[in-house]
């Protein structure tokens, strides 16, 4: 299929349709409006249903209803709206319902701003809502990868019965790039015999539920979820390594920031002789802990670069586990880091290394 030029938001919407998503429940919020708008136009053409809910809360509960009925379903929002969805996401996680949730992150806290940020990292990868649960979180850094991740997210979500999130930002959503819709690797997905479709007596009565009033039962459910999460960590962790073979300094960056970091290390190598490379998490949960821990055997220092006040850096530190210094550079509020900011930081780190210190 030929490449076409699309905004990230549109590519995400079309990728969902190509992945078989036929239900979408949303609510307007900048900077993700092109997703519901696109869905409202396209879903009727393919026999699907778009519905604009009265709130993000209602939208995520419609997702709960549709996912519980066995459909491929998606919702999208941006930071404050994702906060409103957290209760529903927690219920969805506990009820083991597959679905895809898109967060085109804007700056915060509070109403914040409408420009790109990565300050919802904690919320996305540490649970977000109440209770012990995880989402499979994809953090694409291009329009092409956003489309690929959406298709993959539906497959993975159905495979594990764990909700998946696309963690983009205003930049990924609004930017136009060429995109080609590529089929993800097909998985052998089990039939959704658990779905509430009507009780015909041929299979057990479906109960879509997250209530376990007995302590032992709730403990057991959480243990089952945790076992699934361990499988996901084993099988679904995705990352990209760039210039890491001889790197002294390993930059860890995802999404939009990873593109800036790539420019920065190219220039740092060419102009300052700094051997820097990148490990780019494509899934931020599961986080590429093992590959970062492995890099800590050889790299002398790490630099986490993010559009936040320092969130992913905590996972980098956990992965490095005290073996090497882990530095941080971040901007937020809609301020995009420049390659020079990262280069300056790399120069300072190199200076520290050559003086034998651990800055």
């Amino acid at each position, binding site marked *: 299929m030929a490449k076409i030029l699309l905004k990230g938001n549109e590519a995400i919407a079309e990728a969902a349709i190509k992945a078989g998503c036929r239900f979408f429940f949303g609510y307007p919020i900048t900077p993700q409006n092109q997703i519901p708008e696109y869905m409202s136009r396209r879903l009727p053409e393919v026999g699907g249903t778009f519905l604009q809910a009265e709130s993000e809360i209602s939208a995520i509960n419609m997702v709960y209803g549709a996912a519980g009925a066995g459909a491929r379903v998606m919702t999208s929002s941006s930071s404050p709206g994702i906060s409103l969805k957290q209760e529903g996401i927690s219920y969805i996680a506990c009820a083991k319902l597959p679905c895809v949730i898109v967060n085109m992150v804007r700056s915060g806290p509070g109403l914040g701003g409408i420009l790109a940020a990565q300050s919802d990292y904690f919320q996305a990868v540490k649970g977000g809502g109440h209770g012990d649960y995880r989402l499979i979180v994809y953090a694409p850094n291009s329009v092409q990868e956003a489309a690929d991740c959406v298709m993959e997210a539906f497959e993975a979500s159905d495979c594990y019965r764990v909700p998946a999130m696309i963690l983009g930002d205003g930049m990924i959503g609004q930017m136009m790039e060429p995109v080609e819709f590529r089929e993800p690797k097909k998985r052998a997905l089990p039939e959704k015999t658990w779905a509430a479709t009507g009780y015909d007596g041929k299979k057990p009565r*479906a109960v879509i539920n997250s209530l376990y009033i007995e302590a032992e039962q709730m403990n057991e459910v959480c243990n089952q979820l945790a076992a699934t999460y361990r499988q996901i960590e084993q099988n679904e962790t995705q990352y990209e390594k760039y210039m890491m073979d001889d790197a002294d300094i390993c930059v860890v960056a995802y999404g939009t920031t990873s593109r800036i970091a790539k420019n920065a290390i190219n220039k740092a190598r060419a102009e300052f002789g700094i051997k820097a490379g990148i490990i780019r998490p494509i899934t931020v949960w599961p986080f590429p802990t093992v590959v970062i821990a492995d890099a800590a055997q050889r790299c002398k220092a790490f630099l986490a670069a993010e559009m936040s006040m320092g969130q992913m850096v905590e996972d980098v530190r956990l992965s490095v586990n005290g073996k090497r210094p882990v530095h941080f550079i971040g901007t937020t509020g809609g301020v995009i880091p420049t390659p020079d900011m990262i280069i300056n930081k790399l120069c300072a780190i190199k200076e520290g290394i050559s003086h034998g210190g651990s800055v």
Partner: protein
Amino acid sequence: MAVVFKKSSMITDVPFHYCPGCTHGIAHRLVAECIEEMGLEKRAVGVCPVGCAVFAYKYFNCDMYEAAHGRAPAVATGAKRVHPQNLVFTYQGDGDLASIGMAEIVHAAARGEKITAIFINNAIYGMTSGQMAPTTLIGQKTTTSPYGRDAEHCGYPIRVSEMLSTLDGAAYIARVSMHDIPNINKAKKAVRQAFETQMAGKGFSLVEFLSTCPTNWGKTPVESMEWLKEHMLPYYPLGVYKEA
């Protein structure tokens, strides 16, 4: 021997957790009988609330959801849109439907969502042990209105049926009571008509059941029925408020 009463096949054999004298049992039976009599056993899907009926998924013998507090109409919307041939109903109390879930019920009605809400109005939060509800009457004492509900302080009880009947998407809205046999028979007819409205694709339907809560009202079941008649009926008049 002649069978004079038989439990509906749409009710499971799991013992109810409801308090003795509570009217949830009657409401469950009426809903179950209507599903069975309409031959919709295999197409019925229910959505439970958070509140006293939180375990209703154990009792209705059909596919069920347990929703977050107040969100049952949104969950039902998702369920119905995926399987429009199904009979989808929510079963919600007054705290769930008229307080935290007010947005969801109003918009489901406004959209003409083809679902049926079974709304249990007992003027109190039962499950959490008797706090003031949006339907608590003026002067009524609860654990969070210990001096009696004061309109000056916390406003007035909401008449949900009247309010929803103003919406064009609402096709059938009725308020019924369970304080005596004739009213229970009327209540069943209302449920039946609500379900028929849904299956005919006419729009949103709701049946509001005036109900008792002997435990949290601090009354015997018989006294509770009397209290309902004396205090609730004047403020919440029975009748069909909308019929498309």
